[in-house]
């Protein structure tokens, strides 16, 4: 399968990574991937936003924080080093006084606003970094996932160097790409969720303008159901992993709407993420579906290199660990 078709030449090389969750190291590696893998387009799938804020208390000329259960105290002059270390792991360090910490603890709304501010600020920095580091010939596409606040979309969309074709068709040359970060309802009630029926409708509406027979790529954050790209630990009603036979029980948690859309539209490639531990590539009909997985907490960038021919067919692919 997917042998290099005789006589076909590569017209486009895509590098796809996803679920970096605020990791500065992973984003820098993502930018470096363009050169290392000689990619024409680099695509960062959804869930770019980090998950946690580390409040760094300013007190008597010292900075105090708690990381991985350890109490840290460093001179204020070490702020850059501390912030850099925390940012590498995808944590947002925020300097504050004890009163501010108490206020955030008591007021979920204020905390939510702080998260949104930090995430948008980080995205602005990342877009600027992309403009600074990327070769002008390389296209950089960033699309959101269910864990990303909608506030970050305009930041990407407004940046001249980065594209954010969410819910749009995007011309990549030999293929057209359609992107959607919404996922079916999760137990965590995240920002971009809907029912399977609504998801199916959104995908169909997005693909409606696509001329019949035009080769396309579906960049859908959620993987297709029971495809091997969507295996995750089963959780009980309290969100605790279910242990069976001495091991966490693993079940498929993907989307039936996505699977059905792939089965009907048969895109050339399906690009997915969402389930970090389910790094895999599977064929559904003629479609190659890829979930490169995510290992952002280790500072490792997992990705996929995909070669597309002039006629829009998929020549070859490789899952990468960098």
């Amino acid at each position, binding site marked *: 399968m997917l042998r290099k078709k005789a006589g076909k030449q590569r017209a486009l090389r895509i590098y796809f990574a996803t679920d970096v969750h605020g990791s500065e190291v992973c984003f820098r590696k993502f930018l470096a991937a363009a050169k290392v893998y000689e990619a024409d387009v680099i695509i960062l799938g959804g869930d770019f936003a980090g998950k946690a804020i580390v*409040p760094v208390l300013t007190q008597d000329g010292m900075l105090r924080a708690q990381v991985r259960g350890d109490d840290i105290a460093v001179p204020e002059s070490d702020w850059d080093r501390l912030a850099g270390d925390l940012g590498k792991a995808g944590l947002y360090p925020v300097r504050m006084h004890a009163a501010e910490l108490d206020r955030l603890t008591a007021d979920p709304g204020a905390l939510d606003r702080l998260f949104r501010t930090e995430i948008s600020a980080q995205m602005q920095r990342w877009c600027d970094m992309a403009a600074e580091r990327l070769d002008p010939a390389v296209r950089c596409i960033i699309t959101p996932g269910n864990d990303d606040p909608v506030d970050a979309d305009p930041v990407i969309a407004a940046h001249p160097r980065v594209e954010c074709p969410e819910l749009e068709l995007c011309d990549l040359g030999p293929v057209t790409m359609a992107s959607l970060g919404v996922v079916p309802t999760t137990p965590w009630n995240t920002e971009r969720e809907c029912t399977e029926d609504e998801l199916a409708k959104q995908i169909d509406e997005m693909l409606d303008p696509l001329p019949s027979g035009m080769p396309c790529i579906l960049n859908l954050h959620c993987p297709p159901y029971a495809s091997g790209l969507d295996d995750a630990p089963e959780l009980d009603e309290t969100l605790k992993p279910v242990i069976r*036979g001495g091991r966490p029980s693993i079940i498929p948690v993907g989307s039936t709407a996505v699977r059905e859309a792939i089965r009907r539209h048969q895109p050339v490639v399906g690009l997915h993420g969402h389930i970090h531990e389910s790094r895999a590539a599977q064929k559904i009909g003629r479609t190659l579906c890829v979930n490169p997985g995510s290992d952002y907490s280790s500072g490792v960038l997992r990705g996929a290199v995909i070669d597309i021919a002039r006629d829009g067919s998929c020549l070859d692919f490789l899952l990468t660990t960098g």
Partner: protein
Amino acid sequence: MTSSEASVPAGAAKAASTASTRLFVRQTSGLVRDLGIPAATGISLASVAVVNTFINFNAGLTDFTKSDMYLPLLAAAVIWLVAMFAYRYLLRAVPRAGGEYVYLSRIVSPAAGSVAGLGIAVVFTYVLSTNAHFAAQFTPFMLSGLGSAFHSTALANAGNHLTSNIAIAWLSVVVMLIVAALSLFSVRIVARIIFWLIVLQVLAFVVLIGMLAANSHADFTSALATYSNHPGAFQAIINAARSNGVVFGTSIASAVAIIPFMVLNYNGVLYSYYVGGELRRPGRTYLYASTISIGVLVVLWVGVWALLRARVGLQFMQAQANLSVANPTAYGKITSLNSVAGGLGYGMILSSDPITKILFATAVPLAEIAVNLAFLTVTTRVLFAQAFDRLLPVGVAKIGDRNHAPNVAIAIVLVIGIGFCFLTSLVNLGSIVALQSLFFALILLAGGISATVLPLRRSDLIQTPGMAEDARRRWLRNVALVGGATTILALFTIYELATHSSVYGKFSWESILTLVIVLGAGPLIYLIARTVRRQRNALDLSMAMRELPPE
């Protein structure tokens, strides 16, 4: 990232627990409630086949003169305790499932991890076949026990016709086929099957301890005489062993040489690191769970060995194990008690009710099926990883549309495993156990090396942000020392295996072939895959393992 709370409005954020923890966690997908010490301990203990200790006792008694198990059991526990600290740092660095393959990939290099991954896949396939072989070896004992429980001489006699090498090979194949058939069910059903098989073997072990404690040495000699229809069976076995040159007693050298077998005993006891990402305060929970598990196993195994020595006698166990190998005809004339069964066999003849007889008879085959079901899942996952790295065809990882099971991977493992079944049936039990010990020692070595180089290669993964330079150096030195100690202990285990010609050094073409296939498979498949892809002008494999510059 984990949280101890859940369910807040969409997009909202919250404090992870209290202000004193000083960490605010956003409500995002993947946040799960943490597993505590009891759950982690359960995972560790369920990963160990407790009844397999009798196989290892037998291998030690058979392959070394003057064998005793106290020192080997305790020394092996110490080796795993040291390794536990190394894995604690690895868990902190890579708090996700994956094991040594992932550690090598992340910490040493992706290429080393990939090659090791292939080797581990082949090793695990070999382990599947050796477990099937153990189950097959216990089939005669099982039939004899079931015959006794159901008063069926036909069943009991059937066992006597299934002791040849070729019969054992075919029985191993049947066990492999049973495991493959069960693994085609959904993951949930397979997990339930594993759970109940584990419960049954643990129950058998506990009942055996109770039975040994409740009977005296005189009860045992009397029961053996009745079972064997030989009034002096006990002494006759000792005398026959003596006249066949078996030397009795204990020796430190033998005890040291047996340590690798007992290292194998504890394999699985640290497996709670596989759920490291879901543990509450991972480092602490993992240490507690692993220490408790090792402690429980030490008490169980040292306890059962002490009971066996007191009720059966060391001299008799040494005589029985060695006579049945050195002169099976002489042994067979005295008793039909299966010597490989060890403690379970002693329990069987002491037992007077059919339920316990059935429990003892089926304990090992059921345990091996449980272990193999778990191993098959792991093996197919490692094959998946290789397929996604394009070292194997992608079709290997194809998921069945109907049963959502990896049918192709299962078929491949089954075919290779059956091949190993025939190979292992031609090698003696001691060599099989030794080879298996070697493989797990090599895997432990991979873990030790990963921990040793962790401070050099990926110190960013383990050091606490903002740590002072002196403290940071001390911390990294401690990590390297613990990793180094694990590496040395793994090397010691390998050295012991390699230098005892009576067990492992007595190379035969079968054992050499097995070793070459298992250890050489990784690099060989990598080279073939890379060459083939180059000829097809496909994407270069080395690209998949190229490290990206972070700046």
